[in-house]
């Protein structure tokens, strides 16, 4: 038997050793930060050079070329690694969702909302707040691994899209209505589960 003379001290040592060993395996290698770091730096510097040349209308070009390139590289690497990985961690899941939603929001602000002037100036505040609330809610839902909250969090992004087509006078009302299914309903469900536990 593998548990003969297995003292409490030895048992704690096994637990400690396995946890330490696995933690080392899960350490991030930082490739993603390095790749995005270089692409963003190249985009910033190229955009500055374009400004300096007074070709303002072309300043979007480095971003339009390098950001999708980064997205494609990231997607290919992630898909290749996903199935080959021997271990999957909670931190990895949380980090990837943080960047998926932040990347989506950055794309929306940089390539949709601002260039088309559909959301600009003071009138865009409510939409931007909904966007940030959506990021926080999606990440929270993914961290606690709760599909209901994930889908209700997506309503924040539906609200932002609605705001593009609806007069800013009603934006605060849309935000208020979104709070009910996106915050209050999941909040009350969590509370009732907590009380039952």
């Amino acid at each position, binding site marked *: 038997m*593998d548990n003969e003379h297995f003292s*409490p001290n030895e048992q704690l040592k096994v637990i400690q050793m396995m*946890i330490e060993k696995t*933690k080392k395996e899960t350490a991030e290698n930082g490739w993603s930060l390095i790749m995005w770091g270089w692409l963003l730096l190249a985009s910033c510097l190229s955009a500055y050079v374009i400004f300096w040349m007074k070709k303002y209308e072309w300043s979007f070009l480095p971003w339009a070329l390098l950001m999708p390139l980064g997205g494609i590289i990231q997607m290919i690497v992630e898909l290749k690694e996903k199935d080959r990985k*021997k271990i999957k961690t909670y931190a990895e899941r949380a980090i990837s969702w943080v960047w998926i939603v932040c990347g989506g929001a950055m794309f929306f602000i940089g390539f949709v909302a601002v260039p088309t002037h559909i959301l600009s100036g003071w009138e865009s505040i409510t939409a931007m707040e909904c966007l940030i609330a959506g990021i926080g809610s999606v990440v929270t839902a993914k961290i606690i691994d709760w599909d209901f909250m994930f889908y209700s969090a997506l309503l924040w992004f539906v609200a932002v899209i609605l705001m593009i087509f609806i007069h800013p006078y009603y934006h605060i009302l849309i935000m208020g209505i979104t709070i009910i299914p996106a915050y209050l309903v999941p909040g009350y469900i969590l509370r009732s589960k907590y009380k039952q536990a």
Partner: protein
Amino acid sequence: MTDFKQIDPLLHSRIRLAIMSVLLTVEEADFNYLKESTGATDGNLSTHIYKLEEADYLKIIKRFVDNKPKTMCRMTETGRDAFGNYVKVLENMLHLGKED
């Protein structure tokens, strides 16, 4: 009072304890990773994993990657609670040992 009777017999095994310690740290671990980290053979590891699955301490997820079967293991809430209780009992035993 804490004694050996309180020790969960299912976790009182080097390999099963090692498997559960790995799964506590990660969301999912591959069968081969568990084999490497515990030093167990295929057959031995399978036996221990199925015992833990029977007790609902872990969940076995089978997938196909590049047409090859891949077995992933994930700790359940029951397993997490059992592991927590096991560590508490161990700590109490060590504490009592020091008092003696």
